[in-house]
């Protein structure tokens, strides 16, 4: 049942910490991907080959140019490499920002191998011009229709990258109620987290 993806597909692992970079590479290699380890954003820019089919595993916190800055620069250079953001500091505002700037996923360390491979597969699929595992608009609309007005308001705030306490203060209700709303939204929209929501709703 070994997964043998396209050997042509390269994953750039942009990660400053040696052990983490090496372990990512080991994992991805074991799963059949070729990898290019980069210890910084600058090193990635040096090594990047636009002709290669590739995606990038990007740590947001890097010495020198940060992951977010790199993402912005790539967008400016019109380099459309799919980016999977990995972070040891899973804070919502950064997640929302990188997702809005076009990252295809946002994964927290320590990463589950399955989740990571899923994201990489999606990235390779994007490049293979396969239809991304995008849900039909109808299903999304159906799910949205299940939300109450209040849940929709909360959802809008969530998509703006706001924290529960900020939403609670703005709406004048308790944090706990916001948590309940969030939980209901996750249930009704059938998503795992904010990244899914942004991917689904933009």
């Amino acid at each position, binding site marked *: 049942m070994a997964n043998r993806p396209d050997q042509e597909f390269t994953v750039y692992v942009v990660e400053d910490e040696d052990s983490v970079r090496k372990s990512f590479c080991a994992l991805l290699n074991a799963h059949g991907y070729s990898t290019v380890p980069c210890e910084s954003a600058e090193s990635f820019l040096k090594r990047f080959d636009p002709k290669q089919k590739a995606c990038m595993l990007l740590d947001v916190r890097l010495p020198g140019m940060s992951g977010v800055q790199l993402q912005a620069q790539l967008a400016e250079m019109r380099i459309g490499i799919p980016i999977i953001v990995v972070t040891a500091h899973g804070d919502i505002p950064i997640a929302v920002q990188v997702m809005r700037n076009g990252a295809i996923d946002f994964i927290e360390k*320590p990463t589950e191998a399955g989740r990571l491979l899923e994201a990489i597969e999606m990235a390779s699929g994007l490049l293979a011009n396969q239809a991304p595992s995008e849900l039909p608009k109808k299903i999304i609309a159906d799910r949205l229709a299940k939300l109450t007005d209040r849940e929709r308001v909360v959802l809008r705030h969530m998509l703006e990258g706001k924290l529960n306490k900020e939403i609670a203060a703005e709406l004048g209700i308790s944090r706990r109620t916001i948590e309940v709303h969030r939980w*209901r939204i996750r249930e009704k929209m059938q998503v795992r987290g904010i990244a899914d929501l942004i991917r689904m709703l933009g």
Partner: protein
Amino acid sequence: MTLDTVNLETCDQEPIHLIGAVQPHGALIAIDGDRFTVEFASRNAASFIGVGPEKILGKDIAKLIGAGNARQLRTLTLGPSNPELLSPWFISFSGPDGTQIDLECLPHRSNGHIILELMHAEPAPARVWEDEYLRREFISELVKPGALEELANASARIIRDVTGFDRVMIYRFAEDKHGEVIAESTNRPDSFLGLHYPASDIPDPARRHFLLNVVRAIPDINSERVPIISRKGTVADAASASPLDLTFCKLRAVAPVHVEYLNNMGVAASLSISLVTNNQLWGLVACHHYEPREISSSRLRFAELLGSTTSALLQSMESTNQLQKSITAEKTAFRIEQQARGGTSLRSLINDWATVLMQLIDAQGMLLFLGDDVVAFGAVPSTPLDFSDLWKVQADGVATTAQLSEHIDMDEEQMKVAAGAALLDLSEDGQDYLVFLRSEFEQTIRWAGKPDKVETTTEDGVTRLSPRGSFALWREERHGQSRPFSAMDRDALRILRRALFALNSLEHERAALEAQRAAEAQETRLRHALLDASRASSMGELASAIAHELNQPLSAISNYISACRQELRNADVVIPERAALLIDEAVAETTRAGDLMRRMRNFISAGDLNAEFIDLNRTIQQGIELALAYVDLPRLQVNLLLDQSIPLVLADPVQIGQVMLNLTRNSITAMQDSRVQKLTVEVISSGAWVKVYVRDTGHGIPPEQHKYLFEPFNTSTTQGMGIGLSLCRSIIEAHEGRIWAEPVKTGSVFVFQLPIEGANGEQA
């Protein structure tokens, strides 16, 4: 010095004991105390002993009164003064013409001299009558009365009976020394009862003499005084080189000012008996006759006895009254102190006792000053008064005045309500005091004549003073004065003050101690808050750093394990089922560790809960199992009383698991050395809450720990950093729940409760 005027400045210093003369109803002979030679003799000596001064001066007294009498004189015990009862010495001797002379002699020793005062003896029957009277009535009459005025009246009546004077009055001296007639017995139509006599009527030297000589008889005001001649042939008065001290002479001549005074009153004969209590001139029995009247020394002696008895009775009566008042004050003070022991504050004590206190001091109003606070009772002025000037004149913490307006500025209204005041100082710093107020005592004083002496200026410019010319009734309305505060009042005030001062000091001490404690508690709270704050920020940073540092290797481990498994698969190695399971578990654990890390960091830096609807039973079980995995207590019994019927609870399972882990671990640590090691965890659905009880049989929580149990760094409750319980509380409170320790006799019980969604009115 003339007879009718006296110099104002010397009035009080007038040396009346050096007047150098006697009244004519007796004769005076002064002999040398050792040699018994006659040194002084009054010019009228011849009328009593048959020979004049010129013949006897320098002679041996034995030659005059006979050797036997002279011998007896040497055996008499004579004091330097004789203010005691008159003790007459009856002598008989042959005169120069051979006739027998019977005399009463009053001898006393003074400045190296023996002074012999000689009077004609009275026939015996009178003395018998007096004894009879004394036996029959005197004692019983005087002992009967219960009030001062009754005693005074009885005394006046008996003295008039015995002396036969027209009028007998009993004066009582007020504190300002003015006198008031409190009793009178008279055969005249007019009455002096209730009249006041100004203090200046009796100058201080006269008062001193009244103290030294209890009886003073002036049979005829206007009789000519008889000079006393010294051996040099001069009058032995103040002006001479060797005056004779007549301090204790009964016969002493009358001072001119006194003669004038009595004449102005129309009095011809006078007898006064001093009423002395506690060595103070309490009052005076004044007997007036409107014609000259001489009474025998026996009657005089009896009058003196009456006076002394009256004085003694007055003193005992006053002492009793004073004692009674003091006892009442002591009793009140005691009861107040008793009540204070129950923890009542001084303010409420005064409030409770206000009526009793005001009654005791005969006050109509009362003001309690405690720092800047003033509490008023009864009648007090509507415009506040500043008592600081009265406070200044306090002695031993008490100041009294019957005329407050003499000390502080007051308006009419204030003067009416606060005419008199007694101030009790209640604190060292003068911040607290109690003031009793006496309302104005509308008093009309009926002066026996205008109470001013007449001042005249003579041609040589010297201001002279003469006694009042008129004793016509003079009414004086007194305003702005209260009933005076008596010695009794002051005693009661002192007793109350002592008790109240002590209570107030105690209260201040207690308050200071409490303030100190409160300050310390505040400081502790502040320290905890600071610790908490520093904990929060440093823990936030620390957590962030730790999370980052640990997440990286965890990430690597997780990746390596996954990669390893994949490589084995890639190499077509058949992984034994058990090994595969272990690999899965290793991955799951790194994920869990990562989860925990992330959530703790989120939580500490006040991030969001990752709440979901969970089965609390499962989370609890997992937490306990995790805690038990690391302990080795073979005797430990674990009772899990779960309730599968409780609704799902919106909570972060990792954090609630952490709470269970901490509580369980604490309990296990506490039971390490216990005989019985029993852990009971119970889940109960209770209204809007799910409650979780964690009971153990460990060493329990010391009572002093209860307060700080959930504070951070409270290391005595755990063996770790002391943040376990504080973390638990933070987690539970972030879930809008509550955690507490229940007081139990053995072991400890920790309870936390989480809200059941929708059950507490909040619509999700």
